[in-house]
């Protein structure tokens, strides 16, 4: 597209620029999936973009030229980084987290309900065991059982068990939030 062609003509490459075109191909193929995973955890567009940026910066240094292996890694890194942000925020200032996740005063009733549900989800994700939270986000972010198994270092047959436990724990925590 025009934007791309124009940019490549004019810009000097940074150090290590010889692998930048290849990295750009990798970035463009996986950025949206990575940002979406982070968004599923954080519920915040800008914060998800920040996490995705950090993940790809790390990937650029970690995988010099071999991006085949990096596709799964960036997804897992996005989930864990986003969970770190979520838990870090929670530790720093629980109240601030609520404000951040809920956002502005709602304007429509169904939006209110939806936002409250999402804020509730962030709180619950922050409380769940890390592996449970990660497997939930990965599966419902579109990763297959095989991809999740590779990411977590378990057999694919075990993913169903982890996922079942995680979804059960999620429901119990949601019930607890609702009745507290």
């Amino acid at each position, binding site marked *: 597209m025009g934007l791309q062609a124009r940019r490549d003509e004019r810009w000097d490459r940074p150090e290590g620029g010889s692998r930048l075109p290849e990295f750009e191909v990798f970035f463009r193929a996986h*950025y949206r999936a990575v940002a979406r995973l982070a968004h599923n955890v954080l519920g915040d*567009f800008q914060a998800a973009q920040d996490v995705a940026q950090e993940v790809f*910066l790390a990937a650029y240094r970690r995988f010099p030229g071999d991006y085949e292996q990096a596709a799964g890694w960036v997804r897992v890194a996005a989930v864990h980084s986003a969970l770190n942000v979520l838990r870090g925020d929670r530790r720093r200032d629980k109240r601030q987290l609520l404000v951040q996740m809920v956002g502005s005063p709602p304007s429509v009733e169904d939006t209110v309900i939806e936002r409250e549900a999402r804020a509730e989800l962030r709180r619950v994700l922050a409380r769940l065991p890390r592996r449970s939270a990660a497997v939930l986000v990965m599966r419902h972010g579109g990763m297959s*059982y095989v991809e999740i198994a590779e990411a977590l270092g378990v057999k694919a047959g075990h993913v169903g068990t982890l996922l079942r436990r995680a*979804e059960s724990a999620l429901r119990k925590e949601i019930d607890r939030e609702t009745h507290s």
Partner: protein
Amino acid sequence: MRHIPDGVLRRLDDEPLAVPDKVIDHVSACERCGARRAEIARDTELAARLLSAPQLVHDTDIAWARLRRELHRRPDEEPGRRRRPTSVGRRGTRLPRVSLRTGMVIAALGIVLAGSAVAASLTTVFAPTHVAPLSLSQSDLQSITAFMGLGDRRPLGGFATPSGSTTFRFGTITWSSGPAHPAPSRAAAAAEAGFPVSLPARLPAGVGAVRQFIVQPRANATVKFNSTAASLGGSSVTLDAGPAVVAEYSGATSGTDVPTLGVATMRRPTALSSGASLSQIEAFLLGQPGIPAQLVEEVRLLGDLRTTLPVPVPPGASVHSVQVAGWPGVVLADSSNAAAAVVWEDGRGMLHVVAGLLDTRDVLNVADQLG
């Protein structure tokens, strides 16, 4: 056969082909396993509902540009010690609170002026087909004002009078336009503007009826370069913008006089240049000392300036790229998401702005009805 473990029942819903047939047969026949499967499915449905929220599309071009900038800036820095990258939405403070009408006027002026600045500066023929965000900081604006030699006379906030002329460092700017005025009805506004005015059929909660239509007549501005502009001397660029119609909505609660929503429609701005080529103008202006490097970078990232209308992003605003009825658009929101705007150009060469004291979702819902 023993009862089926929960993990296998869970996978049965997601990847049934990965589960042996004998397991499927057992679940079909076993009341206990069937009941557990139903319970598992309820938990799955809850998780899916909570975790599969609709999202705006993340813009890969913008993200790549940002990442590339980071790699340029600190190529050797370890990721662990890396400062959190600066996002467009965090370059400054939050948006000042302004009235909707003021906001709409600022937005319209911003679009026209950004189009003017870029078109007048960088193109020979400017006929944008789509919009793209251009991040502007307060210092960027001050630098441009200083660079242009406008001082306090003509800050980049619009022209003070309907017509007139002024000098700047490299020549003169002459402009003319009629004043914005109310129209008695939608039909009258459309007749005066010369194009149909589409309005949303369904309004967000809190938004009342249209309280007035405002028509901004067509405006044009000509930039004539003098000899101080080196190779551009003697050439001129003429920008043509408008007309525009703004439908202003009142609040839903009676007695409140605060407008909550504005829907603006205008013809896309165009520009014609004589005497200088695109590459000459671009090389001259972007090569001038005093133009912030980051702004130059942002302008270059816009791509083909002949077909791209930059939407200025004020400091503190967040920006997302979206599709509005299939056309690329830009969504701006203040940091609390209490006020938002979406700008897009449709395939008929009309530019649309929906802005209001609403959240992003509400303005997008309105925009989608206009597409």
